[in-house]
């Protein structure tokens, strides 16, 4: 198991390094210059380039960038926030995004699981149908559309929740964005849980357990749920990743100062801020790879079969 994890981690780090390098090269070979040229003379630009070391060979630049990055220094933005250090800007953004994203995952998984279990236990009855319809709606309508409707109804027509995000009333004002972000997770998990549980209910070992006299909550808890929950871990990873994308628009709509909004500002504004694109690109890739890695390892721990096949392959 330790060897499996080690190999996985090594592979993930290598991938991240390659992605960082490619991103770095792509951003550096950009045509045009990163300074607003109308306001600076050629000499000033040349001085600035020399000061930032933009004329060095690209590998040297990369090594320098990486050594700073490892100390947690992302450099400075070129146009956003008047060139404030990216690290300080990122700090508050990351915490905002993570709290809302975490809340969304929590709500989505918890409610989704409950709904899925309830639907599987009432197979073919009203609750099952409701769950199906709910999951179809959740998959077909993007999260930001939900947010637009929630915002319009509960902040504008009935002014109960704040119309925009307010960091001072964190919990209260993150209800709407977290709820709308969680809907996709909720619907996918509920549908998946329902299908997995139905499949396990029809399996031979559950029939055996039933024929031994086990029934009701005990049967569900001990035999059905345990086996049904394992595959759900695998869908959680892509869901979290989708959440990152969804959060981009949700943060834009609800005025949340998060990494998503930062990304939108960096790419969709008048000028593109290369350093932010680079920093956020590394951050997103790191998150993405980290989540995938975590789920892989978790899956290996939960399901012994994966461990065995990994050992055989090694």
């Amino acid at each position: 198991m330790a060897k499996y994890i080690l190999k996985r981690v090594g592979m993930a780090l290598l991938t991240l390094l390659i992605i960082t390098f490619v991103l770095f090269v792509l951003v550096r070979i950009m045509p045009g210059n990163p300074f607003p040229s109308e306001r600076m003379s050629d000499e000033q630009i040349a001085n600035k380039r020399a000061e930032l070391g933009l004329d060095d060979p690209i590998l040297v630049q990369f090594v320098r960038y990486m050594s700073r990055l490892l100390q947690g220094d992302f450099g400075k933005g070129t146009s956003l926030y008047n060139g404030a250090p990216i690290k300080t800007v990122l700090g508050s953004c990351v915490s905002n995004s993570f709290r809302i994203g975490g809340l969304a995952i929590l709500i989505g998984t918890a409610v989704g699981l409950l709904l899925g279990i309830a639907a599987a236990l009432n197979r073919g009855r009203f609750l099952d149908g409701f769950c199906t319809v709910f999951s179809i709606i959740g998959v077909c309508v993007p999260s930001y559309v939900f947010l637009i409707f929630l915002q319009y109804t509960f902040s504008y027509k009935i002014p109960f929740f704040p119309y925009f995000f307010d960091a001072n009333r964190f919990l209260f004002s993150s209800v709407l964005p977290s709820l709308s972000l969680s809907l996709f997770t909720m619907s996918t998990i509920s549908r998946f849980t329902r299908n997995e549980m139905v499949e396990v209910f029809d399996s031979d070992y559950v029939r055996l357990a039933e024929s031994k006299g086990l029934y009701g909550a005990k049967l569900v808890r001990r035999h059905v749920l345990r086996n049904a929950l394992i595959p759900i871990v695998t869908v959680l990873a892509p869901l979290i990743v989708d959440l990152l994308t969804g959060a981009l628009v949700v943060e834009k709509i609800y005025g949340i100062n998060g990494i998503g909004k930062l990304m939108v500002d960096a790419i969709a504004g008048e000028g593109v801020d290369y350093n932010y694109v680079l920093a956020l690109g590394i951050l997103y890739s790191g998150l993405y790879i980290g989540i995938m890695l975590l789920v892989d390892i978790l899956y290996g721990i939960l399901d012994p079969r994966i461990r065995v096949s990994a050992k055989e392959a090694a």
Partner: protein
Amino acid sequence: MAKQKTAAPVRAAYVPRREDFVFLEGRELRIDTNFASLGYWKGVLLHFWHDKRAMTGLVIVLAIILLAILGPGMNAYGYKDIIKVVNDAGKKVIARGISPRIPALHTLFGGEAYSDAFADSSFLFGTDDMGRDLWTRTWEGARVSLIIAFVTILIDMIVGMSFGLISGFFGGAVDAVMQRFVEIANSVPRLVIVSVLAIFMPKGMSLVIVALLLTEWIGMSKIARAEMLKLKEQEYVLASRTLGAGSFHIIFRQILPNTIGPIITQVMFSIPTAIFTEAFLSFVGVGIVLPQCSIGSLIEDGFNNITTLPYQILPPILVLALLMLGFNFIGDGFREALAPKLEDM
């Protein structure tokens, strides 16, 4: 216990008749039509035809495609025309924010009342804040989104399929290198690809298409590779190899036709993803640029005017949701039709 009697034979032993030894030639040949054997694709289509959900999806998608083709031409206004109308006072004004002609919607959302002055012009979905007809814009947007989705997914299908088939067929070192490449490409989030593209390219339709081209082929290649690994051990591959067929012929002429089913299923699930991504990018502001419109940019317009003209956001959202629904239903139906489980029969 009573002694059991042996049961009487149910049927007497069969005595062969003369006819049994006469050739059938010249007599009527009967083919079983009730349980006739079906070709593979005929069976799939039949299964699909009887799948109510899949057919609903097909009807929805076809209806939207039809409207996207015909819709923009159904009234006199172009998608970027700013319409002027004569108001009650007899003045010619720009037709800003006229609410839809559907009465229930109007009472729900308010907006400028639909007055008789516009009786000659039919703003079925109303007009937007700039005075453009929403009916035309909605279907024009649907058309743009659908074109983007179909074109990119078609190219992705060809690229991904070739990549996966070649990787799976040759195996060994080729496969290892190609799969490492896929693994790395797969661990770059779509957002990062889009943001880097935003540096290199002008915002617009081409950026959306390139972003989709760079991301969507991976799923296809995985499926094509898995199918190839399954199929390449089959006898017919060995047979054509023995007969002297080259690798290219085996991959693309012999095996490809057999992998097409799962790939089409994947296409059906990729199209909604493409539409979703387009909507997302346009909403964020790196997609379609004005005055061009797509579903995403229409939703963004609607969002910007949500407090004043709340009905404006409804048509693009409904079209988006229905497209998602339709394609997902078709995809599900197709998957089931290709590999029917006993419980579905």
